């Protein structure tokens, strides 16, 4: 068989291929030749073949059949063979192949070879791809080599030890004695790798960290080395642009950071040297900046004195003004890390950071945006928001979503006035409306309902925005909801904040109908606008037009629209008497309280009907607008506004199920009591104790009616003294049927951490025989077991 071609020839041949297919053909031919050569067990040319195979592997062609050959090469005596063999092993083999275990013996022998380069090769391969079994077997050899005086081998052994520790953390103790003299080496290569080894050990195990701090007195040693590096004059072998071995300096600074973190003694020992490095390093070249950057990170992480911290932040500020983009990027990243702890110092550089928003570089813009949001506070909100809104206008689409949510959050936290807040929101919606996140629509709606005095202004502005542009869905959704709610304010021209515009009812309905037919509207938006039109039927006088629109959509193809239209139609026909109550104004919504409920919790009494049809969707369309099925599942009521519970309500007999839902409650034998009994309305309290938390008393009220007329729109409210916390879950219904035919139940949870006497003031409102009734009462006769 003729001698296989050399690697160079192969490369030359492949480069002459003009198409991918030609190249593939050549490679396949060569692969076949290599395979037959392997089968012949030809020792002389094996390394040449494997070299070619590695080249083909780099181009992306399969080369797994060469794995065993690599092993044979490693076992050979010649250095050339070993070199290619180990390279092949590193490129082709990894833990997942079983073949790699066969290497263990070879590596072991080579680790004890007479030639240092062979030992070096073995260490290199073990350090790159040794599996945990291999590492366990060979850790002893590595440890021996760590103590040798040959610096070439020592540095390789150190890095190999790092790999071993990463794979098998339990072996860390084994390397501990060898590390004792590592730092007294003169050779910088060894110093460098030893510092890496020590860093790895300290990062992995807090015990090691403590050990190094106390016993080894590591910090003084490192400080000494660093000092030598800075103070010693020019040393040609380690010099990089005028600075002595910057790589080693950076590594030492990093290790000092780990040692000094949350440890006062070590931090104190380092203060001087850090100050020295920070002031003496030359910043004209990248190397100097690299060292300064590392120093700044170290100063921020350890317990340094405040003067040093200010120095560090000033260095970062100087970086920000540097022309080199890399430096600015790095400065922004580190400022982001420190803005939580040293907020005031970073504020000083606010204007520079805001300027970076206008930079052309995408990475810098992103960092600057994140940092700007972190720097917003009550004082600078107006100025910052102006800049950020300008940024939102002009930035790339990939930023808009994050920027918009950031603006909303910041506005919520620091808004100086409600009007400003609403203006900002309007601005965001109109400029980046389509990038706003889905959950911001309900948040916005909640915000708008809460600012009662701004309703007229808000709806007017939203209406005007709708006239301009209906393509941005979140804007359209919020606008149609508001028009539905506050359309009467719009038409009556009541706005105080702004020049009121003259709008007729027909124009408003035109706009809303336009949304329904437009191609730009998504189905969700259409749902919103249909409901808005429906709501206007109680606020406007031109009901006929609305009736017509609703009946048209009764045969719409979109199932959701059709269902809504049909049910609204039913509202006009059969349930017309319920319509005004259903479509009344929404009450102020409380945000979902995650940190404890407030004293009086308003129930969602007024606008929810007391259900007769389980599938009737309430005239509220948010926040679960994407889960219209959820509305159906929950039986229609009490979905929104989400106050404290999502427990579905069912007719009165559901009291027992409610109890089951509340988890493992044991009826603790506390006797029930009558809390209120007047005018035919009787309210009983029954008690349970919630097992997971014995301080919570769970009270179920049962309201019953002994008169002959139903009590409709029944609302129960309760208040407790300040030391208690109260949570009111939703009632089973709003109608207390006459003549004790049923009861309305509602669950109250009272948190009583101080175990004081439970007292409660209750307020009842209902409509009886057409006239509204309101009553206040105090409940003091709680049995002692309920609060002990």
């Amino acid at each position, binding site marked *: 068989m003729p001698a296989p071609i050399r690697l*160079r020839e192969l*490369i030359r041949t492949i*480069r002459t291929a003009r198409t991918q297919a030609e190249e593939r053909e050549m490679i396949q031919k060569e692969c076949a030749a290599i395979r037959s050569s392997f089968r012949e067990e030809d020792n002389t040319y094996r390394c040449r073949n494997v070299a070619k195979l*590695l*080249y083909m*592997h*780099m*181009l*992306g062609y*399969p*080369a797994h059949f060469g794995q065993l050959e690599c092993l044979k090469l490693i076992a050979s005596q010649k*250095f*050339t063979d070993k*070199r*290619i063999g180990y*390279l092949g092993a590193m*490129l082709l083999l*990894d833990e*997942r192949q079983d073949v790699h275990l066969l290497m263990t013996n070879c590596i072991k022998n080579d680790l004890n070879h007479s*030639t240092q*380069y062979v030992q*070096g090769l073995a*260490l*290199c391969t073990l*350090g*790159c791809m040794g599996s945990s079994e291999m590492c366990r077997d060979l850790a002893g050899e590595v440890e021996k080599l760590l103590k040798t005086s040959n610096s070439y081998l020592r*540095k390789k052994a150190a*890095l190999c030890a*790092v790999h071993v520790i990463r794979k098998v953390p339990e072996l860390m103790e084994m390397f501990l004695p060898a590390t004792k003299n590592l730092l007294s080496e003169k050779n*910088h*290569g060894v110093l*460098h*790798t030893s510092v*890496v080894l020590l860093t790895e050990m300290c990062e992995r195990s807090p015990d090691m960290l403590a050990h190094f701090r106390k016993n080894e007195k590591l910090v003084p040693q490192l400080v000494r080395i660093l000092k030598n590096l800075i103070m010693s004059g020019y040393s040609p*072998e*380690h010099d*990089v*642009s005028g600075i002595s*071995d*910057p*790589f*080693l300096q*950076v590594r030492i600074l990093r290790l000092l950071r780990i040692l000094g973190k949350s440890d006062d003694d070590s931090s104190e020992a380092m203060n001087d040297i850090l100050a020295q490095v920070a002031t003496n390093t030359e910043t004209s070249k*990248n*190397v100097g*900046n*690299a060292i300064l*950057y*590392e120093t700044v990170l170290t100063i921020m992480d350890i317990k340094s004195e405040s003067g040093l911290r200010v120095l560090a932040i000033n260095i970062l500020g100087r970086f920000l003004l540097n022309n080199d*983009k*890399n*430096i*600015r*990027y*790095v400065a922004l990243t580190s400022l982001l890390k420190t803005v939580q702890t040293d907020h005031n110092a970073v504020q000083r550089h606010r204007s520079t950071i805001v300027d970076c928003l206008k930079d*052309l*570089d*995408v*990475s*810098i813009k992103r960092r600057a945006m994140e940092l700007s949001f972190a720097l917003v506070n009550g004082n600078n909100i107006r100025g910052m928001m102006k800049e950020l809104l300008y940024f939102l206008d002009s930035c790339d689409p990939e930023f808009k979503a994050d920027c918009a949510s950031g603006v909303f959050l910041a506005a919520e936290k620091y808004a100086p006035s409600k009007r400003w807040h609403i203006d900002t929101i309007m601005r965001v919606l109109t400029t980046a409306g389509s990038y706003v996140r889905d959950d911001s629509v309900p948040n916005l709606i909640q915000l708008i309902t809460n600012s009662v005095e701004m309703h007229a202004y808000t709806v007017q502005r939203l209406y005007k925005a709708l006239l301009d542009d209906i393509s941005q869905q979140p804007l359209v959704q919020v606008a149609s909801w508001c028009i539905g709610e506050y359309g009467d304010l719009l038409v009556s021209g009541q706005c105080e904040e702004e020049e009121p515009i003259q709008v007729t009812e027909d124009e408003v309905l035109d706009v809303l109908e336009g949304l329904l037919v437009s191609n730009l509207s998504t189905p969700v938006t259409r749902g919103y606008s249909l409901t808005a039109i429906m709501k206007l039927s109680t606020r406007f006088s031109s009901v006929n037009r609305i009736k017509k629109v609703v009946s048209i959509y009764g045969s719409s193809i979109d199932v959701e629209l059709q269902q809504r239209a049909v049910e609204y139609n039913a509202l006009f026909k059969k349930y017309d008497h319920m319509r005004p109550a259903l479509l009344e104004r929404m009450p102020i919504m409380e945000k979902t309280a995650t940190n404890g409920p407030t004293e009086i919790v308003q129930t969602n009494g007024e606008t929810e009907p007391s259900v007769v049809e389980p599938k009737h969707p309430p005239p509220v369309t948010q926040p679960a607008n994407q889960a219209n099925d959820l509305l159906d599942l929950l039986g229609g009521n009490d979905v929104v506004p989400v106050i404290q519970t999502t427990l579905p309500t069912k007719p009165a007999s559901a009291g027992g199920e409610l109890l089951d839902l509340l988890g493992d409650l044991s009826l603790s034998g506390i006797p029930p009591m009558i809390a209120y009994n007047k005018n035919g309305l009787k309210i009983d309290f029954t008690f349970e104790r919630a097992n997971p938390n014995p301080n919570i008393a769970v009270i179920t009220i049962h309201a019953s009616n002994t008169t002959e007329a139903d009590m409709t729109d029944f609302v129960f409210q309760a208040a407790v003294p300040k030391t208690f916390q109260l949570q009111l879950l939703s009632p089973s219904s709003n109608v207390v049927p006459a003549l004790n035919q049923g009861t309305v139940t509602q669950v109250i949870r009272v948190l009583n951490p101080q175990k004081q006497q439970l007292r409660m003031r209750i307020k009842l409102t209902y409509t009886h025989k057409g006239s509204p009734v309101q009553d206040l009462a105090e409940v003091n006769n709680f049995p002692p077991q309920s609060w002990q």
Partner: protein
Amino acid sequence: MIKAILIFNNHGKPRLSKFYEHYTEDTEQQIIRETFHLVSKRDENVCNFLEGGMLIGGSDYKLIYRHYATLYFVFCVDSSESELGILDLIQVKVFVETLDKCFENVCELDLIFHVDKVHNILAEMVMGGMVLETNMNEIITQVDAQNKMEKSEAGIAGAPARAVSAVKNMNLPEMPRNINIGDISIKVPNLPSFK
């Protein structure tokens, strides 16, 4: 820790690929393609740091790259490495300058035809994903010594290479240019006295 070192040209063809973590061959090729895609989109005067692509680990990993003539040198590192330090590693004293010294004004063709040598140089610099040696002279000394060992074993096939290095190392004394013998008067003996 350095996750991968890639060198590819302006068209995305890989010239060197070394991964310090385990991936299948397909994934490796995909990573090379994705990295090329991300890096080639960058302008000339933007900063040299990028978030890593999805395959290589997403935003935990950074790509630090330098573009020299027709080649991109890309290091994929995690947060434990200093970005500016790696930049120096690629550029100033270490990788590129070492290649320059070893190959005498290195160009892309050198990298193409001597992939294995480049791997050997890299192995002296970065081991197991961590920086081993940063002193350029040290690295070159080691690489030279190993190359010499290789040549001494090469046998007949290494003859041309040995001849080249022999000529390079030959210590030729200064060749005299003018040979001035001077005036040679050759005394010819009297022939008649020869009887």
